[in-house]
């Protein structure tokens, strides 16, 4: 049997695909609704949702009225939300490609993961860049504990900062912990009520799109494992170790 290698279409000729991962209830759907609201007039957007119970998130987004309902599609994951964004992304890829074809030209497709746990991150085979979403109500120490998405997603959103006083979380400390765990990668504190924070998230998407279109964006895999963490020192690093612990 002959074999053939297929090379993907040149990156700049298709949409930028952005994943949104993070635990249940941290505000992934709200972030997507916010992005649609903020960017929907200047960009052509589409959304793929992966809710564990199909449709829930898609229906939320459709009812939010921020995007043409036809541009929002749900993909069932057979109770395997992790698999659908990581090791068998085919159904999501088909949905993304369908949207790109049906609404060409599409600038950005947002793919929402079914809220899994801290270990679920997107494969670069599915998305070019990804948000990982935490919220302050999940606890101020979550960012410090780390995980592949927290440590290495392209951007970490610390959501619902307006709730911090009510849940006893020091937002500045949480953001500083996150920045430390991420070794300088982007951290975006966000509250829907804070226009400046919304503008920063919007600006991050636009700048990523610009880099992507210039052909300079390289998709990063946050990995399936947390960056290396030294419990005794609180130091986190993701570089290769020659020595063993």
């Amino acid at each position: 049997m002959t074999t053939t290698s297929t090379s993907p279409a040149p990156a700049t000729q298709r949409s930028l695909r952005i994943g949104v991962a993070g635990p249940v209830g941290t505000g992934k759907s709200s972030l997507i609704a916010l992005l649609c609201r903020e960017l929907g007039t200047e960009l052509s957007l589409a959304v793929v949702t992966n809710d564990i119970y199909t449709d829930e998130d898609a229906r939320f987004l459709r009812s939010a009225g921020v995007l043409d309902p036809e541009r929002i599609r749900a993909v069932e994951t057979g109770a395997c939300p992790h698999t659908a964004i990581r090791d068998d992304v085919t159904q999501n890829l088909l949905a993304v490609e369908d949207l790109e074809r049906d609404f060409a030209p599409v600038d950005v497709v947002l793919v929402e993961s079914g809220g899994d746990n801290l270990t679920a991150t997107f494969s670069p085979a599915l998305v070019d860049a990804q948000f990982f979403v935490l919220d302050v109500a999940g606890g101020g120490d979550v960012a410090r504990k780390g995980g592949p998405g927290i440590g290495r997603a392209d951007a970490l959103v610390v959501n619902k900062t307006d709730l911090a006083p009510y849940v006893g979380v020091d937002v500045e400390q949480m953001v500083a912990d996150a920045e430390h765990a991420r070794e300088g990668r982007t951290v975006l504190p966000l509250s829907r009520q804070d226009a400046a924070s919304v503008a920063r998230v919007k600006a991050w998407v636009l700048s990523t799109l610009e880099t992507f279109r210039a052909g300079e964006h390289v998709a990063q895999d946050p990995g399936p494992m947390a960056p290396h963490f030294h419990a005794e020192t609180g130091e986190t690093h993701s570089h290769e170790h020659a020595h063993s612990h």
Partner: protein
Amino acid sequence: MTVTASSPYLSLLLADGRLPTGAHTQSAGVEPALRHGMRVDEVPAYLRVRLATVTEVEAATAVVAGRVWAGSPSSRDGSLVHALTEVDAAWRVRTLSDALREASDLLGRSYLRTAGAVWDLRPLTAAPGPWCRAVVVGVVAAGAGLDAQQTARLVAYEDVQTVVAAALKLEPFDPGLGVRWAADAAVAVEALVARVAEVRSTDEIPAHSAPLVEEWGQHHRTSERRLFRA
């Protein structure tokens, strides 16, 4: 079709649930069946019904598609696509539920996407489609050198495992029991293989149907909070 040396191995590869074709999104109708009141201990009977009806149609379609593909190694052109279109249509007219046809089309696309990246499946990959899953599996199997029996067994095995795996997720039970059900299905699977292995043309594809399976599949498309596509 001639069995090549690697076909037993490739047969395992294609039957493995880890083949990245999106199969984890499917329940082969067991989710709507359980929702409509089928008891989980009736899964073995459900498997027998499928193997005697819809899965036999699927397997026979795959066998014919495989023969079409294997029979024209030197003329990979429009006539081949035309012949496969006829096979596809033969499956389509035997599948009443448009929800099940759409689910099959989606699986056919993802299967072709995966296999087409590994093997040269032109002109099928270049043709517009949609192609039902049975046609795609038949072509991929023939391309991998599987004979009619191996192809039919592949289709039947995957159906059995899809049902059992989905049932385990929906109403968990001793997984050993699920393996036993799959093992016990061997009798019905081999009977199916014997029935369809000699099917040579679209006219000979059986036209069984399982009205409840189709009706449940139809309902499932609009049901809320489902875990599986179909």
